């Protein structure tokens, strides 16, 4: 039996870890990793909202023949489907970020954001 508040607090702590990484890292790829950590924390928070004590995954199978009418044997399937969407969009944004990082590296020959902008264009 897990208190739902524990899941919320842990996911928020993970979000803060990612935020700290975004604020302090100088390497673009490490910043992208930190953004991914923040995304994961948000996903865990949503999944935690759908958790119901002593419930199993919302998939009918041989071991879970039907949904209990009192509604206590499966967890909420709605946050799961929303998180599926969020994960796919996270993949898209990460791919775009990596493409931008590749172009920046080919232009400035460095991934450190403090050393970018030394050329005359910026």
């Amino acid at each position, binding site marked *: 039996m897990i208190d739902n508040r524990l899941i919320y607090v842990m996911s928020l702590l993970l979000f803060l870890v990612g935020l700290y990484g975004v604020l302090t890292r100088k390497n673009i790829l490490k910043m992208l990793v930190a953004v991914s950590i923040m995304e994961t924390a948000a996903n865990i928070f949503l999944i935690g909202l759908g958790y119901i004590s002593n419930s199993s995954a919302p998939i009918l199978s041989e071991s879970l023949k039907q949904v209990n009418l009192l509604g206590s044997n499966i967890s909420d399937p*709605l946050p799961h489907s929303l998180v599926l969407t969020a994960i796919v969009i996270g993949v898209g944004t990460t791919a775009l970020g990596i493409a931008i990082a590749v172009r920046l590296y080919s232009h400035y020959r460095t991934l450190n954001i403090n050393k970018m902008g030394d050329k005359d264009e910026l």
Partner: protein
Amino acid sequence: MRETSFNTGKFFALIIVAVLGIFMISPFFDTGSGKKISPRLENLKDRVSLHYGLKNVNDASKNIEECQGDYYTCREGVKCNNVIYKETADAETGPANLVTSIVLDYRAFDTLGEITVLFISILGVALLMTGFPALPVKNESMIQSAGAKFLVPIIMLVGIYIFLHGHLTPGGGFPGGAVIATGFLLMFMTSGDYNFRSRRFKTVETAAGTIIVALAIAGLIFKDSFFANFLPNGRLGDLFSSFLIVIIYSLIGIKVGSELSVGLRNLYTGEKDD
């Protein structure tokens, strides 16, 4: 640009993170007299999502429209015929995986937007990598090429299994497509023998996307709404059940697999300027 001291930056970052953390975490331990997070939500019966599990969303929404009141008072009149695995036939939606029934039936329009977002982001990758100098493929070791020849068919097979069983087991089109793209990445990384043309992948992807939208419009023609389920549902839990969802999930798997393959190819060797 002024170089700030490393420690100063870390100090301010810690302060920002701490303040934000206090604001975010404090509501969970609030002892005020306001409205708290409801303990009723500890049971699926007190959530709207129960109707996804019982597959009576249409009945429930009709009933609530008729009595025009609070959801919790109106729900008593909703008839509940419970669905049973391997017994119920022709339920409101076919899949035994309730998440799939939401993603591709009740909220399929959301999934269409999701596919569009992925398409646009991969398009952005292609635009950014246009004209990027193509890196020469390094000579790989014998272990790498032999291992790829052995592994790639198995990886493809696992991907196809995942998206064909999306209505019965965890998984579906998006994870299956990602697995297939991993197989193609292994092929890109090993050898120049394979004659890859991004154009072929793009053709497959475009065809899959067009068929998905055509199926959605067919729902508008044969039934009353966009993405309506107009094919038979079959018995719950069989492999050959909920035909429309299997078809759409397979198309999504093909589309996502080819799309991510093109994206990885672009990141690896750059997009050629046509």
